[in-house]
């Protein structure tokens, strides 16, 4: 279903709130990853507030869609979006990375059972999503209604294990599977295209018999449309290559690989929050969000 102008505005506001929260909790935690969570905020917002079939108050609802976060280190955006959707209290976000917290530094189902998977080591998420999609295929064949979403980073496409999974998904024609690649072009050691060039990336996926959609990962309509379109693809899995701006929303972070996992201190937090609350200076400080 296409988004109305009103819905787009609402989603954008929500994504901004989620970014504010991410900065807030990362400063509280004193460690954690910055750029990925910020640049995936728009996609997570569309997923949790528009696309996913889920019931936050009933996280074990059997019919729910499945969301596998492969690059577990961007979990601040997962936790924040889950909290804002009603999975758990927003105040709990402040416990991120603390001893005894349900919000572990990388997601762990032992602590937060409503997660679909525990993750952290890169390159393992797509396999699990393929397994989930296969289970539905075994049970329901082509009539499987549930969607399985695998969220991947571009850095983890350097892992051969990702391509093992991609090959199998193509072979099994898993049209119930959607992978989203956060194409932000950064990883810990530098820019992805310097570390290990992935281009031509869409050709690589096509070669394994995937349907490829490339989008602006910050355009709510494009994001929602891509998820909708994936449902029309009958004979193969879909990958959405989402071109994003690493650290999106805070100019100082944007496109700078050093912000992959740099510490957010008090001073940086203040600067970043001001920028997000005034929508990059569009609002006066007194009107800030």
């Amino acid at each position, binding site marked *: 279903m296409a988004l109305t102008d009103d819905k787009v505005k609402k989603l954008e506001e929500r994504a901004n709130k989620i970014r504010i929260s991410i900065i807030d909790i990362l400063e509280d935690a004193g460690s954690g990853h910055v750029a990925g969570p910020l640049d995936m905020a728009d996609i997570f917002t569309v997923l949790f507030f528009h696309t996913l079939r889920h019931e936050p108050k009933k996280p074990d609802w059997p019919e729910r869609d499945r969301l596998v976060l492969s690059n577990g280190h961007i979990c601040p955006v997962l936790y924040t979006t889950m909290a804002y959707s009603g999975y758990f209290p927003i105040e709990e976000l402040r416990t991120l990375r603390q001893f005894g917290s349900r919000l572990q530094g990388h997601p762990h189902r*032992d602590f937060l059972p409503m997660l679909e998977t525990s993750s952290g080591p890169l*390159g393992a998420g797509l396999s699990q999503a393929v397994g989930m999609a296969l289970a539905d295929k075994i049970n329901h064949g082509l009539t499987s209604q549930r969607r399985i979403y695998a969220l991947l980073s571009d850095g983890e496409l350097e892992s051969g294990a990702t391509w093992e999974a991609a090959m199998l998904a193509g072979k099994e024609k898993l049209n119930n599977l959607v992978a989203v690649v956060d194409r932000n072009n950064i990883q810990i050691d530098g820019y992805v295209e310097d570390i290990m060039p992935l281009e031509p990336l869409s050709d690589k996926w096509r070669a394994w018999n995937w349907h490829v959609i490339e989008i602006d990962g910050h355009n709510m309509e494009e994001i929602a449309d891509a998820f909708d379109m994936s449902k029309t693809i009958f004979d193969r899995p879909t990958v959405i290559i989402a071109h994003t701006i690493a650290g999106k929303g805070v100019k100082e972070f944007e496109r700078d690989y050093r912000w992959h996992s740099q510490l957010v201190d008090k001073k940086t937090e203040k600067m970043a929050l001001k920028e997000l609350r005034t929508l990059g200076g569009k609002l006066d400080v007194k009107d800030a969000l």
Partner: protein
Amino acid sequence: MTRLSRGALDILMLNPELKLNTKLFDKNVEQIPIRQGFGEGLLEAGKKDQRIVGLCADLTESTKMNLFAEKFPRRFIEIGVAEQNLAGVASGLAAMGKIPFISSYAMFSPGRNWEQIRTTICYNDRPVKIAGSHTGVSVGPDGGTHQALEDIAITRVLPRMIVISPCDSIEARKTTIASVDTGTPVYIRLAREKTPVMTTEKTPFEIGKAQIFWKSSKPQVGIIATGALLHQALLAAEALEGKIEVEVMNLSTIKPIDEKAVVALAEKARRIVTVEEHQVSGGMGSAVAECLAKHRPVPIEFIGVHDQFGQSGTPEELIEHYGMDTKSIIKAVEKILKR
């Protein structure tokens, strides 16, 4: 004493409660590969339980998963030579309520894909069953790359993982069927070669339970064996009869270890020899040592591979070369008596 009456006496030493194969000391004892038991067990379990799915990485016949695959093609997934994916896909299937069995050579699964097994299966708490075939030097002519000698060590160190090394094809079948309902990850250690059948259909089996196969009222040495080498241990006991009193234990479940039974044997015999076709470091013997160091410290001799890789040869040549044959076990028993 004639050979015949000797054999009759041997049978008297076998634990009658276990209803073991009375022909197990015969030269022409029936021999079946342990992996065959896995294949039959999976087929049998698959008939009863729709949740079971089979996944293999291009070794379907070698691991005997072909029996299941032929009967249930819709519940069988050929993954290709991609063991990392094998583990991850199984985790995803388990997340949806399936009970996946994955099979390959142990060198590749749980060897190559250890981290995926740790994170996506154990850490993630998914009840995937991992069948690792072609363990030990008795893989034979294929050589050292294909002879898994480290698989017990790398699986038993994983939280939640149950580790079982059946002694024959019948126990492998029972292991496979029993592993369905543990609710945990299970590693099932298989072997390629034909192996003497020591147990029978009537032999009781329970995961986590060690069994005394060869009994003695006053043992001087307790031999604890796992896998096919249990047969060599029993032959050693037979050869020692009338000279040195031993008890022989089948420790097929290595984790969780049957602490009570292992400690009881150490109490009784006060000396232990462990026998396994695996590196001595980190294997079954180490598990026994950890248990006894804590509860009942006694001298231990370790039969196994000592910090080496395997090589090509016949299984018999290799078992002898690496010091895991009956003669080596007898020597270890004699040695420990002097300690």
